[in-house]
């Protein structure tokens, strides 16, 4: 191989950079992005990612609906979002360019695969003119690269067919980005060796493509600057990257271990929740039992059966599946069994936007069942927080003998962030005791503190009893239709859920403890709100941020905290659901910031709302 003449280059150290890889869904953009992410993590950057893929597995190649993207924001400072605008856009075809270029910063780096800008490609992307020639890209630093041709050239000696060679062109692009940000490639080498263990030639092909991309930048004068993004100052400890779905899966394994009971998951595949089932089905050596049920109703009811038998039972789904589970969740409420239900929200109604994020199931979670049927509802704020939420939900379910709903969303589910791995001692205790004493056993007697009924599992001698969905007599649990008993039971079930508040920590606002404006959020809006808060406070604004992880019951001091600010704004990816709850419960004149586009908030959007609100009250 010819040696490459290395040109002297300017080096620039920057705090932060945002890259987006965009291509056809068959172009391997998710893998490319994940590799860049893992390398950034290993180098100690803080980071956040935003994978964005189409609902179709393989929409026609080269078309606008087939575009798949992966964005990463990596930094030497704290990172809260995947970034509003991108510094580098890699566009593998005209469709990817058309759908993504608007997010590229003015003067940003634009790498395009010119081999895919032929007449037919432009037609597939419905482009009337060739953007590489019509000056529409003049405001960017455009690098037209013959990615396909150069990749084939680099792999010509491996004896692969053209199709296999073309599959490696994403690694050529990855190599270019590694060069641009001066990143080592060995981490990805290792990954390739593991991934293609049985087909070493493919590992080799991808390595060659990546090296060729790296070398191309090195040899091409056009690339004048290389960037350095130093490591972030994260809290000391051992870290890994984690997505929300993975964190939930690990959290439930940990919860079952802490509770010393087996974990059972009943689930029916649905985007973006399926990965939890995929992951938990691997952990059989932890005694985890996963059951792919025939539908969501069976997923929920099988979990009820498992909980009845003494397992830590969970079910995982998204909005449409949640709707199907509702009658059965009512049964779990009536029979007072511990179950954790995870709703990984996506755009709706109906099938909606299966692969896009939304937060519009809050009211469904709170109120979506027939009759008076409250349950504790929790929401994870970040991918890593999903781990803690799994533990918290399990703990509450088992302590209070109640079904608990966890709300996550597509953004948390697939997005990744560095996560400090906890030591086992840091995990909460989850004590569980099945009832075994016959003396004085009543199926619906209650613990005075938690109002939990005893968990008397089948197989326990002498405790044979019947439970069911019909109204029960207080204490005995016998079927009972008396008017006053019914009201007592309705109130008891509500009081039990309300009693969970004793375990809900008081909120402490981030930023100013009182002042002009309080932002109240829940779920995945944590990142953009936190980022916006920091930026606005740096400009002297007196604002605070409360992020609710417990949505039912709400923290005890929330009403008082809301009153400490002149104005309350609730950013949500829905039409104002938490807003509605807060207004109803606290009679506070809060305002919403609402975005329902299948995309997370940008920091700038939250900042704009803060400025607008402060202008109004000034």
């Amino acid at each position: 191989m010819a040696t490459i003449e290395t040109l002297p280059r300017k080096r620039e150290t920057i705090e932060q950079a945002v890259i987006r890889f965009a291509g056809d869904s068959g172009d391997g953009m998710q893998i490319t992005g994940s590799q860049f992410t893992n390398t950034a993590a290993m180098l100690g950057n803080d980071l956040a990612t935003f994978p964005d893929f189409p609902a179709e597995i393989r929409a026609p190649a080269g078309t606008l609906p087939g575009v798949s993207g992966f964005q990463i924001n990596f930094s030497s400072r704290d990172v809260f979002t995947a970034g509003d605008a991108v510094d580098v856009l890699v566009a593998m075809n005209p469709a990817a360019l058309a759908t993504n270029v608007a997010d590229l910063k003015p003067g940003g780096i634009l790498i395009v695969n010119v081999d895919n800008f032929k007449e037919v490609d432009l037609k597939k992307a419905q482009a009337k003119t060739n953007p590489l020639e019509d000056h529409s890209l003049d405001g960017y630093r455009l690098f037209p690269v013959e990615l396909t041709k150069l990749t084939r050239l680099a792999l010509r000696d491996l004896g692969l067919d053209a199709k296999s060679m073309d599959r490696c062109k994403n690694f050529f692009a990855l190599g270019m980005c590694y060069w641009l940000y001066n990143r080592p490639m060995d981490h990805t080498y290792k990954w390739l060796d593991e991934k293609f263990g049985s087909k070493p030639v493919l590992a080799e092909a991808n390595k060659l493509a990546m090296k060729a991309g790296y070398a191309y930048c090195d040899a091409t004068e056009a690339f004048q600057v290389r960037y350095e993004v130093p490591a972030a100052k994260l809290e000391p400890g051992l870290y890994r990257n984690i997505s929300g779905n993975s964190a939930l899966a690990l959290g439930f394994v940990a919860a079952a271990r802490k509770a010393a009971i087996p974990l059972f998951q009943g689930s029916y595949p649905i985007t973006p929740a399926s990965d939890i089932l995929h992951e938990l089905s691997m952990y059989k050596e932890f005694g985890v039992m996963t059951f792919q049920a025939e539908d969501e109703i069976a997923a929920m009811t099988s979990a009820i059966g498992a909980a009845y038998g003494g397992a830590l039972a969970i079910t995982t789904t998204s909005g449409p599946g949640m709707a199907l589970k509702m009658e059965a969740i009512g049964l779990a409420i009536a029979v007072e069994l511990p179950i954790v239900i995870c709703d990984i929200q996506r755009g709706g109604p109906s099938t909606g936007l299966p692969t896009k994020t939304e937060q519009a199931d809050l009211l469904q979670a709170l109120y979506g069942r027939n009759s008076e049927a409250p349950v504790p509802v929790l929401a994870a704020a970040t991918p890593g927080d999903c781990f803690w939420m799994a533990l918290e939900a399990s703990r509450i379910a088992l302590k209070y003998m109640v079904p608990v709903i966890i709300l996550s969303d597509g953004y948390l589910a697939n997005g990744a962030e560095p996560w400090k791995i906890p030591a086992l001692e840091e995990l909460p205790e989850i004590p569980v005791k099945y009832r075994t004493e016959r003396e004085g056993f009543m199926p619906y007697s209650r613990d005075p503190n938690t109002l939990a009924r005893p968990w008397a599992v089948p197989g326990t001698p002498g405790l044979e009893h019947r439970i069911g969905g019909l109204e029960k007599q207080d204490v005995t649990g016998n079927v009972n239709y008396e008017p006053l008993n019914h009201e007592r039971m309705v109130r008891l079930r509500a009081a039990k859920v309300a009693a969970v508040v004793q375990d809900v920590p008081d909120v402490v606002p981030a930023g100013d403890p009182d002042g002009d404006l309080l932002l109240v959020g829940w779920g995945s809006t944590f990142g953009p709100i936190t980022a916006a808060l920091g930026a606005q406070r740096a400009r002297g604004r007196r604002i605070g941020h409360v992020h609710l992880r417990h949505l039912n019951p709400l923290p005890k001091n929330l009403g008082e905290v809301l009153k400490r600010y002149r104005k309350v704004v609730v950013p949500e990816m829905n039409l104002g659901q938490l807003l509605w709850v807060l207004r109803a419960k606290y009679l506070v004149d809060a305002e919403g910031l609402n975005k329902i586009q299948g995309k997370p908030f940008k920091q700038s959007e939250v900042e704009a709302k803060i400025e607008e609100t402060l202008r109004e009250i000034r």
Partner: protein
Amino acid sequence: MTTTLPVYTKKDFQTDQEVRWCPGCGDYAILSAVQSVFPELGIPKEKFVVVSGIGCSSRFPYYMNTYGFHTIHGRAPAVATGLKLTRPDLEVWVATGDGDALSIGGNHTIHMIRRNVGLKVLLFNNKIYGLTKGQYSPTSEMGKKAKSTPYGSVDRPFNPLSLALGAEATFVARSVDVFQSHLKATLKRAAAHQGTAFIEILQNCNIFNDGAWENLTERDVRDDNTIAIEHGQPLVFGKNKDKGIRMDGLDLEVVALGNGITEKDLIIHDERHLNPAYAFLLSRMDGTPGFPTPLGVLRAIDAPRYEAGMNEQVRLAIQKKGQGDLTKLLRAGDTWEVR
């Protein structure tokens, strides 16, 4: 360690709850048969669980002094599946109705059967929705005049046995509320079966569908209109045991014994026949003019059970990898140290 089982009687399985079925309802007889059979099974009482859906029939668990779970309409097979998968040590029985199991819960029923989960299923077939006061059900005959079908139904009914066999049930049987000794014997056979044991019990709803099974149960016609099938025995029926069933190409044929036709020409019932098509043919005799309705065990074969397979995978994983190490799991994949 040996533990001696207490000697149970029928009384041990009765509860103090007032039974709330209509007087004369066939459900009483089924309850009585089950309460008589359970003490004889040699199983500790606390190991029994009766799971039901919604319907008159699904009130069953309240009257059994065992663990019991009255769930929601149609979902008993799924609740029972979750229980049996996690607690294979339990004896889980499902009580359900024709509407519960075949209409709203049809999906769960076929998938429970397909998976061959070790559950005993008692389908109380009264060909009507009892609890909701008399609408036609998925087993009601076509033309059925009921509350919601004043002009007669235009639905073709399910044959529960054919449906179960279509899902490749490993144990399929039929009995009748009023044929107590036959019913008890059938329940015992189901109790001994590994895998899903599906029993259709023909049950009279004397309020909304009285006499639905009359032509099978009345003394003067029952021997001609039913055939009690038994493994290894020829298919003979009739008051005078003078009729039989033989193969006719791919079909069944009713023949009169005598005139050169002997029992040797008849089908010898083989409940272990691996191809479900045989039992399916038997199930199709129902309602075919001139043919009797089969009672007894149509099919009883061995097949892998879901809960056994699932628990075996867990056992093997632990054997191979050792009891899961949580610290290792949390630290799996790429990690890095921040100092």
